[in-house]
């Protein structure tokens, strides 16, 4: 699902579609309950990992610097990464966009005679809509991460970048399993559901022709792919099948192996409140001649898909430091109300509101920058110090700025509405014209009894505010406060 790809002519920015999705999401009390409980838990877990504010500040600063260096030196690091991976026997492919990435992956599968794929969790694969492309080509794709498997059965997109099925409760899962695995007895017990998932997916691991995974970090120094997980499906997908294809965004490269400890700590503590994930899997080579297991062929597909363009924007390039921890999402007061699907985008929450308008253009996704009260909770928790609120605000400015169309951000200025622009001009005139402003205050206070009880959407939910009888300026004067 990529709802942001609607007819932008009739709904530039996607505001109307966004409002509809928000409306739908707010009408689902059970799902909202699920989100509330989940977010409360995740926030508490993260907080428990960071008892010392000074330590946290240091960790964020280090992670920021490492990731910023990656962006600064990105072309050199990618070349170095490619060289080392190639020396190690891992084939590297460059993909401009989703279509190219899918074509490359399909070709690799075709060459290997692969008809079935077992997948580890990968947001990039969601971004390029890989599963749909594979299925269209007649290749069976099974998601192996439990959360991804659940939403695959439900035919839904993920509602969170780390916990894709976070919007579902045990009953939802039980019903899905009952529908798709009727041979197993119905249960809502989480341990039993987990056992059932283990059982049904085991056969898929054992017999898949290829495994496809994401990458958390790609280390240029040693030509190493770093994957983190708790379940073990990532290891299974990248060890059992004879072919392993890893997909990554180009921004995930880091320079050195010893950059990993602080980044891993920042990632796992921010994402799920764990000091470390159950497994950290560092892959540097395919199966060697004397080894008895592991894929014979390992490939890395490096995807641009707008990232090099995003990097060109002086302020917004900070977006690319993201390590996909999801902490911003977990702390967002909007997300907790409406969940991930309301954003209608691959990446939800604050990072989605910053990334998607850049990736897809403002005309398609600019409205996401309005799904935010600028509360600042996201920026406060981002482990790589992306100034998310400032970037959201910048996107709002880019959306309405009239300016050159070939500026790096697609759709720049295209969401400027003449009515709103005029309103702000009037506002500026009023607030910079002392006599007019004083006149406005006088009328508003003297005629306060005429304040309408209905003031549009505000009064749908709240009583209307009314001007006071005297403005503060008048009270100040009356109380003898100096003017200068």
């Amino acid at each position, binding site marked *: 699902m990529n709802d942001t790809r609607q007819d932008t002519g009739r709904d530039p920015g996607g505001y109307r579609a966004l409002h509809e999705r928000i409306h739908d999401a707010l009408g689902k009390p059970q799902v909202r309950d699920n989100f509330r409980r989940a977010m409360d838990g995740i926030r508490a877990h993260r907080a428990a990992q960071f008892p010392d504010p000074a330590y946290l500040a240091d960790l964020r600063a280090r992670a920021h*610097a490492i990731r910023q260096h990656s962006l600064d030196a990105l072309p050199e690091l990618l070349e170095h990464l490619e060289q080392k991976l190639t020396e190690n026997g891992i084939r590297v492919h460059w993909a401009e966009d989703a279509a190219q990435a899918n074509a490359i992956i399909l070709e690799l599968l075709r060459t290997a005679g692969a008809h079935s794929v077992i997948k580890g969790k990968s947001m990039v694969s969601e971004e390029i809509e890989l599963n749909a492309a594979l299925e269209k080509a007649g290749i069976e794709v099974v998601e192996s991460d439990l959360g991804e498997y659940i939403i695959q059965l439900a035919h839904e997109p993920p509602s969170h970048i780390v916990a894709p099925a976070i919007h579902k409760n045990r009953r939802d899962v039980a019903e899905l399993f009952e529908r798709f695995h009727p041979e197993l007895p119905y249960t809502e017990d989480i341990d039993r559901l987990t056992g059932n998932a283990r059982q049904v997916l085991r056969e898929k691991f054992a017999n898949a022709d290829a495994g496809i995974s994401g990458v958390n970090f790609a280390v240029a120094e040693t030509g190493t792919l770093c994957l983190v997980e708790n379940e073990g499906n990532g290891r299974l997908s990248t060890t059992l099948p004879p072919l392993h294809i890893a997909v990554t965004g180009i921004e995930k490269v880091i320079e050195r192996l010893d950059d990993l400890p602080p980044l891993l700590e920042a990632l796992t503590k921010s994402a799920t409140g764990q000091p470390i994930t159950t497994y950290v899997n560092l892959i540097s080579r395919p199966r060697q001649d004397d080894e008895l297991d592991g894929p014979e062929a390992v490939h890395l597909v490096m995807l641009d898909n707008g990232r090099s363009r995003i990097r060109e924007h002086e302020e917004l390039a900070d977006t690319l430091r993201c390590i996909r921890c999801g902490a911003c999402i977990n702390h967002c007061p909007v997300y907790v109300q409406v969940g991930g699907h309301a954003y209608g985008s691959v990446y939800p929450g604050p990072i989605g509101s910053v990334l998607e308008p850049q990736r897809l253009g403002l005309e398609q996704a600019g409205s996401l920058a309005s799904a935010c009260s600028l509360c600042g909770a996201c920026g406060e928790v981002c482990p790589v110090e992306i100034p998310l609120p400032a970037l959201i605000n910048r996107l709002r400015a880019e959306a309405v700025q009239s300016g050159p169309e070939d500026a790096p951000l697609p759709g720049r200025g295209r969401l400027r509405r003449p009515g709103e622009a005029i309103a702000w001009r009037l506002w500026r005139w009023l607030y910079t014209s002392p006599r007019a402003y004083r006149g406005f205050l006088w009328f508003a206070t003297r005629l306060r009894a005429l304040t309408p009880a209905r003031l549009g959407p505000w009064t749908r939910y709240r009583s209307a505010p009314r001007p006071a009888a005297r403005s503060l300026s008048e009270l100040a004067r009356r109380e003898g406060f100096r003017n200068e």
Partner: protein
Amino acid sequence: MNETRQSILQRLRGTHVTGDHSGRSARSAPSHADWDSERLIARFSERQQAVRGEVYRLPRGQWLNWLALELPGRGLRQLLAGSGDIGRQLAAVDIRGVQLRTYDEPIEAWKQQLFEEVDVAITGARCGIAETGSLVLWPDRQEPRLTSLVPPVHIALLSADTLYPTLADAMAAENWAERMPTNVLLISGPSKTADIEQTLAYGIHGPKSLITLILED
């Protein structure tokens, strides 16, 4: 595809990015240089136990005895070992009620048996990391990758004197960056998931039980 590579790199080179690197020297990693052996073992154990890993301290020569005593009682009948030192020592003894299987041929030859018949596997560990309670495995021909992954129980032999305080310490002391093997694994507990209602459930895809035997001289 070379064109794609060129055009991506060209775009990247064409943009001059300099960000704030001041944080690089920030001290976040606490140096636990003062952690002695007891402290290291205690921390490792506590971290593992917090996520349902089992940890036992044994004199180095006792691990075979431990297996002989424990495995039958736990209903574990088929034990997988590699072809290295651990496997050889196991092959030299006979544990009642436990059949030893050696992982000495490519997985393709016996995949089904691995999945269906092996109850428990034993491996060594290259070293351990106390801070996060992690085993470090460098799988190789003698202890292949799937040994520690497929069977529902994984037993790891960890030498007490190979415990490092942190991952950074291990990487530096052993100079991993000089040459990385095919695969390096950090294993910090049994397999788990919280994908259903954020509730922890164990043994989803990897081993349901992780047992570390810390061997001391």
